[in-house]
Structures are given as C-alpha cells and as structure tokens.
C-alpha cells in the first residue's frame, strides 16, 4: 500500500483523452514515489465510479499501463504497480514525444538554459529532492 496522497483529477472537456489522463497521472505517481512497487490500484469499476467515468475508459488506461510495463493485471489481485525494470527501457515513442515538447519550446524561442532548467526541476521532483506541492496533513 502506498502511503502518500495520490490524486487523480480528470478534465472531461480536455482535448487529452480521458484514458490518457488517467494513465499519465498513474505514471506521474509512480515516478514521484506516491505509488511504490506493489501498490494496488483500485478496481476498474471502483475508479470509474469514483470519477464518474466509463469503466471501459479506466480499462483502457490500465491496459495501456500494463502494456507499457508499469503494472500487472491479475484476476485476483487486480492492478498492481511493478518494480521498475533493472535495465530501464523507454517506449520507442518516448523520444518522439520528448522531441516534440523540446521542439515546441525551441520554436517559441525559449532559451536552451531555460528548457534545461525546467527539465532539471521536473527530474528533481520525481527524484524526491524537491517538495512538489503543499505540505500534507501529517495524519494522512
């Protein structure tokens, strides 16, 4: 079981598909340590009801996460977060997506130093060397 707060927030009018929003936030929580290896995700029915979205949407997000190697899906234990691989391997599409983001910044004339600074800040967030949001209630 994970110990710190993991929020899932979906925006129903966003252009980003709902399944993608769910998938991205689970990956974010895995990166930030909110979801440690062995953490259980709620059942697809439960998360769908909690967010008021279709169960197929959650299914698709979980399926994506399984395909990408972030979770396992078992009939009995449900969705469980996996240990990150010993030899980390990025999805082939990662470079493409990263390139698109950097290109967007470069095309807008953002200074390379600024792009690097933003990247470093994010890496520090996920490495746990920076506190990303407000202090949590110690009782949680």
């Amino acid at each position, binding site marked *: *079981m*994970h*110990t*710190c*707060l*993991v*929020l*899932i*927030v*979906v*925006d*129903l*009018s966003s252009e980003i598909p709902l399944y993608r929003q769910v998938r991205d936030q689970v990956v974010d*929580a895995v990166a930030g340590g909110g*979801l440690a290896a062995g953490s259980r*995700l*709620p*059942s697809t*029915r*439960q*998360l*769908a*009801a*909690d*967010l*008021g*979205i279709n*169960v197929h949407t959650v299914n698709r997000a979980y399926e994506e996460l399984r395909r990408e190697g972030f979770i396992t899906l078992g009939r009995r234990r449900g969705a469980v977060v996996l240990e990150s691989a010993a030899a980390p391997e990025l999805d082939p599409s990662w470079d493409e997506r990263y390139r698109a983001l950097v290109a967007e910044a470069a095309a807008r004339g953002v200074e390379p130093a600024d792009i690097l600074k933003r990247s470093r800040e994010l890496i520090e967030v996920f490495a746990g060397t920076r506190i*990303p*949001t*407000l202090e*949590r*209630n110690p*009782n*949680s």
Partner: protein
Amino acid sequence: MNPDLVPSLIIVVAVAGAGWLASTMMPPTLQFGVRVPPDRAREAIIGELRRMFRVGLLLGALLAAAITFAVSLTAPRGAVVIVAPVFALLFTGGVYYVVHSRLARVKAAEAWYAGQRIGAATALPGSRSWRWAFWLGPALAITVATAIIGAVDYSSMPARLPVHFGLDGSIDRYVDKSLVAVFWLVVVQFLMTALLGAILWSIQGSRFELDPAAPEESFEHQQRFRGAMTGALGFLIVALDAAFLVTSLATWDIISGSRWVIPVAVLALSVIPAVALVLVAVKMGAQGWRMRRQGESAAAAGTNPRPALVQRDDDRFWKGGMLYWNRDDPAFFVSKRFGAGWTMNFAHPVAWLFLAVPVAIVVVSIVAARGGVG
C-alpha cells in the same frame, strides 16, 4: 395531562430541528440534495427556497404538535409516542421534498450545467488507518463485562425482571427470569457495538469525492472531518455501551438509585455524545467544507494551477436527493447528500445487510419484552 405528551412534543421538535440542522450543514454547491455549479450558488431562487424550507418546517412542526396534542387528549397511553414521530417525519420530509423538487426543476429549466467545464477528482485509497479501532477496545470491554456480570450474578437475581419502562422512568412490565430476560440487553448491546464498529470501518474505506478545482484542499478537509467524526462516533459507541451496562445492572437489581438517577444517567450517556457528534458536523459542515478558504488556497498550493473545473452533476443517482442508488458503483458507503456524514448505496447488497442489524435489534427487543421464547 397525558404523561407521554411532553416527550412526544420533544420528538416533534427534534425531527424538525434535525431537518433544519441538516440544511445548514450543506455547502453552497449541494443544496437540498441538488448539485449546484459554483457560479449558480448565489441564485436568488436558492435563498428563497431556504426561507421557504424554514417556514415550512416551522408550520409543519406546529401542525404535528397540534395533532399530537389532540391525540393525547383522546387516545390510549402509548399511541401519542407513535403519532408524534410519524407526523413530524411526514411534514419535515414533505417540506424537504417540495423544496428539493422545485430546485431540481429550476436547475433543469435554466440548464445550470450547460457549458460548464466538468471535472472529477478522487484520491487513490492509501494505507488504511486503524486508529478508529482504538474505540472498539473499551466498547467491547464494557460489553463483555456486562455479559460476565450477568452470568456471574444470574442465580442471585430476583425471580421477576423489569423489561419495559414508561417514558417517565417507571417500570410498566415484568417477566419471569430466564436467559432471554436476563441477556437480551447484552445481545442488543453487542449488535449495536458491532453495527457502529462496522460503520466506523466503512467510513475509513469510503471514497473521497474531491472538488476538482481544489483537490488537495478538499482532501485535507475531508480527512479532518473523517477524523473528527470517527472520534465523536467512537465516543458515542463507548458511552452507549456504558448506558447499556448501567441499564442492565439496574434491571438485574445489582444497583439501585432513587427513581430518576438511573434514567438520567442513561439519558446523559446517550444524549451528550450524540450532541457532540452533531456539534462536530455543524461546526465542520458536511465533509468539512466550512474549512474551505475561498481563493487563497489555489494560489498557496502554487506549483500546479488547475483550470476551474466543476464537479459533475450526479443528481440522477440520488432518489429524492437523499437515497443513493447506483448499480455501477461498487462502493456501499458514500458521503451524505443532505446532512453531514455517510449513507449507503442502496443498490449494493451489503447496504441491506447493514439494515438487517437494526431490524434484528428491534426483533430481539420485542421477543424479550413479550417474555419470549426463553
């Protein structure tokens, strides 16, 4: 004067008062069981309906009191105690339903949710806190102690035991000593402890329905509300168990006081923690919304400014704005829609299991009072 009149009138006032209190506990975005988008929370119709609700409750209470008084003049003893809550509930519920339906109609007619940017937020269930179980220790200890005292003292109890008390505290029925007559209160005590314990456990597992515009903040408030309500409910369990212990000792003739000492002690043990529970709910508001600080929080949270999302309209799952019915929801314990606290998903089989316990308590009490099977 009919001796049941005053307690019956207190019931009428309590029912109407509970309706009024419940309405004051609700956040501006949840009025009379209807979900209201934040930009409509100041609509004039809502203020109007609030006034209408208060006046309606007052008139309903006066009418129920008048009927109770009329019945007390003619009916046999005991009838008034039934009539008073029935009419009080009927009028209070009726006024609520009229106001609820009107708000729902206006909302639908003016399409309050059209064009809103809808979002949803929840917190993944973290490691379960077991602090609620702290209260079960003393509660179970008192229950077990009651049973042991009853078993040890069984032979020295009088041959006839009181099983029914009038509202003024006088004993109005006895039965011959038997296992049922001696232990039915312990059984009820145990069932009640188990039920409230199960409720505490279910509260810890229930979901967080967060405001998607300020999820961290609403999580923190709901967490605090949960902690405070758990404490107040835990205190209530222990005090009620103590009340059962005192009542049992009195019926077993182990302790005796002047005619009013024991009823007053039992009443204090049940009423004081119940009032404390209500005070917590009133002070914090349903799910702790009163702790919300407008505006500053989002800025303080800082790093991740979110678009102003509006919680989705989920009215269709709430029958009459009060009964949650959602077959697709595996949760059986959910936040209340009118009043602070939790209610059940009545489309979930476990909800009916929960309802079986109070029914069992009533059955045990009736069997025991009849002098029963023992």
